[in-house]
């Protein structure tokens, strides 16, 4: 990995200023914003002479009138008009403006025509196809920005392979346009692909790599790069801080993430980007007050931003007002149908409302937007489980698992599916694996034990139960029912082997739980009768106060799984 500190920071600053100018000239607002943000974070002065020299190129004055007229129309969102003004001009700037305006005109038109229901109706991609034909006939003469728009069109048409090629070409010709990098990032499916791309050796590439690592759940690598950038003088960049916060969030390092987001809030109080991630975090931690505060603050800044809508949606979801939450997610999607997390969140909300078909639609859209969204895959798995299509859910869980191999929840879900399909060997493997990779929710061992029990491999079952109990004691009680079952099994197991002491201890534990109390009593009595000679009977102490705890298991009625902690809600707010 190239070391950024070895680079000339003045050069970097010049680059950024340059990037800002080029992008804003072309109305690539996000690219310009990114460049300006980074540039302002880098406190280095550069020689204005050099900037002047760069700014004054002749290209700028080609077709000046028409280009600036088109630009003003563009700024006022009259895209068709802008495209018309510069329609037959040959210079690359004008041509880019023309194509870009056409593209945006098409996009806005499609948005306006979209129906309220989720899921895009099969829309007519004729205009995009024409743009593709047009651009491909000029492929050779396009500059970096032209290639960018070509790549975007290809991506919209699902011609992924070509899109990647063209976008790589685009970033090679114009490495300072962050938008092209971003588009490219969404198309990268795995690390091998990332390595295989011939990317230009430019300092922006490092940021791109970090971005992709973050998407590919390779958080350490991402953090490392961001850290070098921060250390070399970008510490004031809100972009970098936000990325770091997101990385922590993805790593489920909640404390650090919250800290980072709080820092971000201080640095840039009116920043809305990434706030939806922050809200997810707060949701998972169930920090109601903070979430409410965040929601109100975002709402004050701008009600009609995707991020705001997601934050408010989360807020309502936490208050279990799912209809309202859906309303806000829908609004977010009206604003930007390619906004990934809104789709996933909406899927979760629909799951809450038992609207499986809508949930499937939402999750599918999420996957359309970003194939790497394991939450959507997982959500699909769950919905299909409800629909009793185990092979489908197996497939979706597996996709989720592939994307996040070290997340035990997917593995547990897989195991359960295999169990349903009566493929117990696989199921066993899954549960063991889940335990090995650090079982987040702690149900894996219990399930494993159950399986052994089912397969009447009593030795293993007993040891698994014992391990489970040890585990729960370490972590604190997770589920009363499971523990009681575990103790009950152990009691029976030991009883059957006449290991009276162990059996007795287990049965005593059993008696602490309402569900198993009666059985426990029986065992205890039997043990006692065996031990009847001379030993003082120890009446079992029944702790009645526990009863209230056990019955209040917060499992929803329609939930397929009866004892698993993974519900859509809790999943939603994990990275």
């Amino acid at each position: 990995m190239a070391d950024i500190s070895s680079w000339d920071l003045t050069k970097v600053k010049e680059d950024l200023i340059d990037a800002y100018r080029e992008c804003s000239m072309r109305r690539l607002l996000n690219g310009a914003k990114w460049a300006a943000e980074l540039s302002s974070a880098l406190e280095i002065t550069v020689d204005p002479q050099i900037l002047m020299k760069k700014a004054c190129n002749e290209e700028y004055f080609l077709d000046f009138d028409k280009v600036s007229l088109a630009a003003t129309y563009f700024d006022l969102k009259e895209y068709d008009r802008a495209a018309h003004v510069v329609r037959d001009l040959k210079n690359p700037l004008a041509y880019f403006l023309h194509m870009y305006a056409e593209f945006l005109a098409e996009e806005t038109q499609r948005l306006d025509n979209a129906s309220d229901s989720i899921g895009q109706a099969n829309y007519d991609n004729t205009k995009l196809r024409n743009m593709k034909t047009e651009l491909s006939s000029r492929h050779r003469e396009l500059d970096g920005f032209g290639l960018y728009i070509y790549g975007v069109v290809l991506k919209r048409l699902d011609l992924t392979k070509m899109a990647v090629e063209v976008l790589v070409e685009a970033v090679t010709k114009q490495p300072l346009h962050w938008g092209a990098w971003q588009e490219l990032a969404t198309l990268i499916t795995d690390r091998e692909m990332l390595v295989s791309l011939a990317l230009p050796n430019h300092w922006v590439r490092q940021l791109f790599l970090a971005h992709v690592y973050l998407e590919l759940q390779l958080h350490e690598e991402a953090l490392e790069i961001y850290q070098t950038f921060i250390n070399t003088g970008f510490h004031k960049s809100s972009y970098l801080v936000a990325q770091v916060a997101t990385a922590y969030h993805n790593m489920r390092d909640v404390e650090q993430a919250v800290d980072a987001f709080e820092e971000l809030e201080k640095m840039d109080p009116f920043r809305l980007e990434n706030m939806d991630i922050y809200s997810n975090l707060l949701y998972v931690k169930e920090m109601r007050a903070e979430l409410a505060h965040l929601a109100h603050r975002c709402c004050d800044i701008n009600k009609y931003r995707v991020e705001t809508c997601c934050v408010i949606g989360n807020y309502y979801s936490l208050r279990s007002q799912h209809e309202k939450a859906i309303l806000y997610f829908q609004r977010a999607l009206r604003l930007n149908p390619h906004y990934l997390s809104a789709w996933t969140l909406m899927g979760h909300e629909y799951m809450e409302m038992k609207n499986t078909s809508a949930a499937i639609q939402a999750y599918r859209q999420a996957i359309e937007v970003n194939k790497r969204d394991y939450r959507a895959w997982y959500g699909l798995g769950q919905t299909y489980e409800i629909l009793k299509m185990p092979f489908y859910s197996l497939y979706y869980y597996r996709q989720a698992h592939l994307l996040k191999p070290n997340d035990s929840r997917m593995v547990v879900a897989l195991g359960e599916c295999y169990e349903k399909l009566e493929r117990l060997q696989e199921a066993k493997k899954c549960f063991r694996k889940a335990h090995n990779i650090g079982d987040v929710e702690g149900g894996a061992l219990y399930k494993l034990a159950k399986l052994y029990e089912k397969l009447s491999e009593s030795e293993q079952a007993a040891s698994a139960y014992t391990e489970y109990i040890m585990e729960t004691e370490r972590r604190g009680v997770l589920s009363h029912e499971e523990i009681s079952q575990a103790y009950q099994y152990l009691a029976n197991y030991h009883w059957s082997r006449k290991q009276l002491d162990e059996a007795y201890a287990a049965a005593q534990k059993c008696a602490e739980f309402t569900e198993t109390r009666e059985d426990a009593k029986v065992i205890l009595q039997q043990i006692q009768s065996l031990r009847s000679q001379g030993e003082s009977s120890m009446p079992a102490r029944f702790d009645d106060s526990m009863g209230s705890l056990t019955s209040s298991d917060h499992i929803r009625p329609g939930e397929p799984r009866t004892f698993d902690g993974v519900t859509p809600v809790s999943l939603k707010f994990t990275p």
Partner: protein
Amino acid sequence: MAGESGCQVPESQTKGKLNLDRLKEIVKKYIDKLSAFTVQKSSYSSKTNPKLPNDDICEARQFLVQHHYESALFWADKIVSLSGGAVEDIYWYAQTLYHTGQYHRAATLLCSRKLDRHYAACRFLAAKCHFECKEWQEALNILDMAEVSLTKPSFLQSSINQLSMDADDSLPIRGIESSISLLRGRIYEAMDNRGLAADCFRRALQQDVYCFEAFDLLVSHHMMSAQEEQDLLKTLPLVAQCPEDEMELVRFLYQNRLKKYDKPGTHSIPQSLSPLLENVDVVVNLAERRYYNCEFQKCHKITSGVLSKDPYNSRCLPLHVAVLVELKKPNALFYLGHKLVDFYPNKPVSWFAVGCYYLLTKNFEPARRYLSKATTLEKTFGPAWLAYGHSFAADNEHDQAMAAYFTASQIMKGCHLPVLYIGLEYGLTSNAKLAERFFTLAQSIAPDDPFVLHEMGVIAFQNHEWVEAERYFKEALSRIQSVGYQHMPEKWEALLNNLGHVSRKLKKYEEALEYHRQAELLCPQNPSTYSAIAYIHALTGNNSLAVDFFHKALGLRRDDAFSTTMLGHVIEALMSEVPPIVGDDDSDSLNTSASVVLPPFRPLSFSQADTDDSSLAAHPGDNSSMMAIEEVEMDG
């Protein structure tokens, strides 16, 4: 009074010698300027006049219309009286009558003096008058009578004498034979005797190669197949009838005008005629070429350009309407239709535009009404007939559609499209035998049309003759590729997909995938392409990719039964073959998982295949019927 008049007569006669000439000049000038058709034909004779190097232009100017028919009529009448009924004067008098719409009067004038028997020009005019009155038989009788009389040697002799005399007297005579042949052709055509009509037109053209009208009628009414058109062009007596430098011009212009829908091709203009590049007719021909090459965007650009300069160019309009339908621009079509109906309520193209608008917006009832109106206005307006057929076909009214196409095929003998459509309809009503027959017929008319080859391939495919089908498809593809497009038009996506299907059937999976990929490039986001790709992956055992693509297909078309069932199978197969978890601990597993648990997958999918294929194959079929719909509308 009598004395007065009596003495006046000689006076006027003596003066008349002077005045008469002057008056004659006036009348002739009047008439000359009106007679757009008749005289133009005759005046081709001046072609050979060395004083007029650029004849065409001069003639056109010469016949600029002033429309002073009444004045002409008045003076012509007087001349006839004054000159005591000279043949020439009567002729001109009849001309004025003709132009003022008094056809019967003119005919009677000529026939009552038996002028039509002796003078070709008069005969022609008299017949023309009857023709105008739609009295076909009478018109024909007049022409026939002369022909009979001509066979008699004495008459022939005299008429030849008279002819030469007429020529001196500036009675338009030269080239009248071609005019007569033309008129005869038109009469035959009006009498539904298309074979004879075509012969007459051909003869007219042989007699006078400049007789564009005959050529135009032959071409635009689809009387000859492409091959016959070429032959005709080759046999034209260009060498005999036109000067050296004009030969190339005439040949090029005619060649340029020939039918283009029988095969895709290129369009080029010889260097020496580059000034014609901007000529509207040539430009429209170029647009037509583009249209039949399925380059609709380019075509639209050209036709829009032409119509902005010349808003009611009658050649360009049907093409423009067709391309608007093809590009699905109902709004533009609506407005155009409105304007046309306001301005030209008697032209078929106006109602054709309206009908097409309704066809495009899927209002088939009004579409039929207006299209049939267009056909009643002009029976030979081919595009309207085809569109009329399409309006039924799009509504799944196969029988009626076929009836309309049959009519069209009788009207347009040289056009293979109606036959092709009949074949398509038979194909859609699963009457493969008959469909094949009609496709063969279409192929005999237009052997190089990729559309025909494509449809024949589809039929072969449905008959499970994979090799045959592949051959047809490949041939069609090579025809298309021979045009040398920079980008293949999207229309041909169906062909590529079909090639994919047939390659799959022949177990050439790699090739099939390649074809489907090309199709995807051509027309992205098409669910059937995705499901075809997925199917191949499933067959080659690449289940995870198959699942991926079935998902893609279903994402775009949710109610796709084939993909849904297949996805179920493939997911099942996939899930039973993959290890449960990625990465480690494969070692400790009792690896019996995959094949045991589930029924074998392959045979299942093959039973699926049969149902699938019919649906897939039907799909390209009706797809191309759609494509064919638009494709024809324009040969007007």
